[in-house]
C-alpha cells in the first residue's frame, strides 16, 4: 500500500535532526517567558485532565500561567473555530485531532508550524524530537509541516476471548481468512453469542472498517486527494466487512455504535471484537467485565496487502493567530517532555507517542499486559489519520461513506453502494 510520507516530509525531518542536541540540557532557560499568561482551549480527555493537574508545576518551573479551558469534544468543535475565526489572538493553543479537524484547520491556516520552533534555541536539547515515533509524528504532519505534538498512540486491535477460542481449538486469527473462519465457527445464535462484533453504525464504522480497507490495499484518497471508493479494494473490503458481520455478527449489528458493541464482548456475548486498543481498560476492569482473565489481543488482521491499523492522536497545537507563540511552545514543550510524557502515560495508561516511554521500567511494569507489544508492533505499518478520508468536510464525508457500509450490511448491491459513495464524496469535496 502507498506510504503516506512524502519526500518533503522526509527532508523536513532530516533537516531538523542535526539541529537538536547542540546545547546542553542544563543551560536551557525555562524561565524565558516568565509572567506570560496563555489561554489553551482543549477537549475533555484523560491527557488534558492530567495536564490540568500539572499547571502549578508548569508555572513554578517556567513562570507561565496557562488558563486551560476544557470543553466537551462536540463543544470544542463548535467553539474553537468560532473563536479562532472571530477573535484572533484570543486562544494561544488548542487540542487537535488531525484525522478530524486537520485538513480544515490547515486550510484555514489556523496552525502555527512547529518545526521552526523545534529547530530554534527555544527548544530544550533534551526534548528530543527523534524520541517520537516518526509515523506518529506523521499524524500531526499536514502538507509537509508539523503542526501539533501527538500525546498518545491510538491503534486498533482484534480482541479475542481465549476461553471461547480454546473451546473450539482455534488460534487467535491474524489474517482475514482465519478471522472469517473463526468468526463463523464461534457464532452461536442459539446460545446468544456472536462470533465477531464491531461497529455497524455508518458514521462510526469508518474507523473499524479502515483496517479492512487497508488490508485489501485500499486507501480513502488518491495522491491528488480524490476519493478512491469505487475501486476493487474498497468493494472487496466492504464485501468482507458485511459478510462477516451478516454471517457472524450480533443480530442487531446494523446501526451499532461502539457504546453497544464492546459490552457484548465484555459480557461474553461475542467471541471476537475489533476496535481501539483503549477498550482493553473496559475488559480488564473486574467491576464490569466477565472476561478479565480471558481477553487477548492480536494486531488487526492481515489481508493481501498486510496488516495496517489506523493510528490517530490528539495533541496540542499553537494557534497561528497567537501573539505568544514562543511562550505557548515553551508550555507545550514542558508538558511533552520525556519526563512528563512518561508521567502522563503512567497516570492515564494511554500508550505514548515517545519511544523512551515504552522502554521506561515504570511504564513497562504499569502497562496492561500485551499493550506495549500490540502498539509498538503496529506503529510502523499503521496509517496515520486513517480513520477517515483526510478532507476538509470530515463529518459529511463520513456520513456519505457510512451510507455505503449500511447498504452493504443490509445486503444491498455493494458495487452500486460504493459507486454512490464515490460520487457523493466527490461532490462534497468539490463543494
Amino acid at each position: 500500500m502507498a506510504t503516506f510520507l512524502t519526500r518533503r516530509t522526509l527532508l523536513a525531518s532530516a533537516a531538523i535532526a542535526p539541529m537538536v542536541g547542540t546545547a546542553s540540557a542544563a543551560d536551557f532557560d525555562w524561565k524565558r517567558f516568565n509572567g506570560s499568561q496563555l489561554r489553551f482551549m482543549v477537549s475533555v480527555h484523560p491527557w488534558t485532565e492530567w495536564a490540568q493537574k500539572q499547571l502549578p508545576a508548569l508555572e513554578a518551573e517556567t513562570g507561565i500561567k496557562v488558563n486551560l479551558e476544557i470543553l466537551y469534544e462536540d463543544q470544542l468543535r463548535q467553539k474553537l473555530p468560532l473563536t479562532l475565526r472571530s477573535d484572533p489572538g484570543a486562544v494561544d493553543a488548542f487540542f487537535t485531532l488531525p484525522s478530524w479537524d486537520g485538513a480544515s484547520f490547515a486550510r484555514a491556516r489556523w496552525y502555527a508550524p512547529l518545526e521552526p520552533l523545534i529547530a530554534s534555541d527555544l527548544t530544550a536539547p533534551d526534548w528530543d524530537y527523534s524520541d517520537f515515533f516518526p509515523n506518529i509524528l506523521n499524524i500531526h504532519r499536514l502538507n509537509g509541516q508539523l503542526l501539533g505534538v501527538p500525546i498518545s498512540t491510538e491503534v486498533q486491535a482484534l480482541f479475542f476471548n481465549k476461553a471461547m477460542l480454546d473451546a473450539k481449538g482455534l488460534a487467535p486469527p491474524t489474517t482475514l481468512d482465519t478471522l472469517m473462519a473463526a468468526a463463523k465457527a464461534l457464532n452461536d445464535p442459539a446460545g446468544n453469542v456472536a462470533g465477531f462484533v464491531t461497529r455497524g453504525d455508518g458514521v462510526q464504522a469508518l474507523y473499524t472498517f479502515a483496517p479492512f480497507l487497508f488490508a485489501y490495499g485500499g486507501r480513502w484518497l488518491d495522491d491528488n486527494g480524490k476519493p478512491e471508493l469505487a475501486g476493487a479494494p474498497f468493494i472487496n473490503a466492504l464485501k468482507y466487512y458485511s459478510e462477516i458481520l451478516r454471517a457472524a455478527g450480533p443480530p442487531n449489528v446494523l446501526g451499532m455504535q461502539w457504546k453497544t458493541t464492546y459490552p457484548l464482548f465484555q459480557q461474553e456475548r461475542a467471541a471476537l471484537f475489533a476496535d481501539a486498543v483503549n477498550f482493553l481498560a473496559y475488559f480488564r476492569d473486574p467491576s464490569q467485565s466477565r472476561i478479565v482473565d480471558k481477553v487477548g489481543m492480536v494486531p488487526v488482521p492481515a489481508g493481501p496487502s498486510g496488516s495496517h491499523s489506523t493510528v490517530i492522536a490528539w495533541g496540542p497545537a499553537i494557534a497561528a493567530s497567537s501573539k505568544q507563540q514562543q511562550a505557548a511552545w515553551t508550555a507545550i514543550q514542558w508538558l511533552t517532555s520525556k519526563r512528563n510524557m512518561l508521567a502522563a502515560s503512567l497516570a492515564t495508561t494511554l500508550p505514548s507517542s515517545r519511544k523512551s516511554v515504552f522502554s521506561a521500567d515504570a511504564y513497562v511494569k504499569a502497562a496492561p499486559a500485551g499493550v506495549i507489544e500490540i502498539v509498538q508492533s503496529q506503529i510502523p505499518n499503521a496509517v496515520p489519520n486513517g480513520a477517515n478520508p483526510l478532507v476538509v468536510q470530515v463529518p459529511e464525508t463520513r456520513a456519505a461513506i457510512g451510507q455505503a457500509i449500511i447498504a452493504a450490511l443490509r445486503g444491498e448491491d455493494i458495487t452500486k453502494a460504493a459507486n454512490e459513495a464515490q460520487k457523493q464524496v466527490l461532490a462534497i469535496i468539490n463543494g
Partner: protein
Amino acid sequence: MVDVAAAPRAPVTPRRRRDWTPELLSLPALVAILAVMGFPLLYLGWMSLHRWSLVGFDPPRFVGLGNFAQLVQDERFVEALGRTFWFTALGLVSNLPLGLGIALLMHERFPGRSLCRALLILPMVATPAAMGLVWVIMLDPTLGIVRYLLGAIGIDHPPLWLSDPDLVVPTLVAVDAWMWTPMVALICIAGLAALPPEPFEAALVDGASALQRFRYLTLPMMLPTLMVAAMLRVMDLLKLIDIVYVMTGGGPGHLSETINLYNYLAALSYDKIGYGSAIALVLFAIVIACTLVLIRLRRPAS
C-alpha cells in the same frame, strides 16, 4: 355656585385626540419580543441566503435562493421531511388516546390516586438524553432487560428495535410516547376537572351508558383541551431531536433522521451554516403552519 351651563363648552371635534398610552405602555414588551424573536428570525433568513463556512476567514457569500433550490433536490432532506411527518402522526395517534385514557382513569377516585399522579409525571421530568441511553440499554437485543422479559413470556426472537429499518421509527415514537404522554394526560386531567357536572348528571338520569356518556359528552367537551395537547405535541414532535440523537444518531444510516437532526448536522457538524439556516427556516414555517391549522380547527369547537 358656578353656572355650569354657562361655562364655555369645548368645541365638539369629530375625533378625539388619539390616546397612545396603551401602545406606549406595551412598547417595551414589543421591543423585547422583536429583539429576541424578530432579530434571530431575520438573521436566520439572511444566513439562509448565503453560503457560509466557519472554518477559515472567508466571508459569507450571497447565493440568493440557491440553498432552497438545493434543498428540493436533496434526497436526504426530502426523506427526513417525510419521516418527520411520520414521527408526528405516529406520536399524535399514540399520545392523545393514551393520554386521555390515563386522564379518565386518574379522574376517578381510587385509593392511591395522588401517588399515581405523582408517579405519572416522572418520565416527563427526567432528562431526555439520559432516558434515551437507558432505553438503548433496555432494548439491546442481546443484553437488554426487554429481551429477558419477552423471553419470560415465551418470545425467543424479540424484534431488533433500533436496528430494524422498519421498526426504528415506531420504537423511537414509543420512547417519546413514554416520555410525553404524561404531559397529555396532565392537560386532560385539568380539562376533565373543569367540565361542568350538570350534563353528566342529566345523562345519568336519562339512563345513558358509560360509553354513551363518553361518546356524546366527554369527548366533544374535551375536544378543545385535546386540541391544546395536540398543538403542544405537534410542535414538539416536528422539532424532535434529543432522543433520536442519543438513541440512534439518526441511524441506521439516515433511517431515523428527523429534519431537526439533519438541520443540526448540516449547520454545526457539516459546517454549512447557510444550508442549515435554510432547513431551519423550512422547519419553522412547517411548525407555524401546523400550529395555525390546529388553532383554526379548535375555533368552531369552542
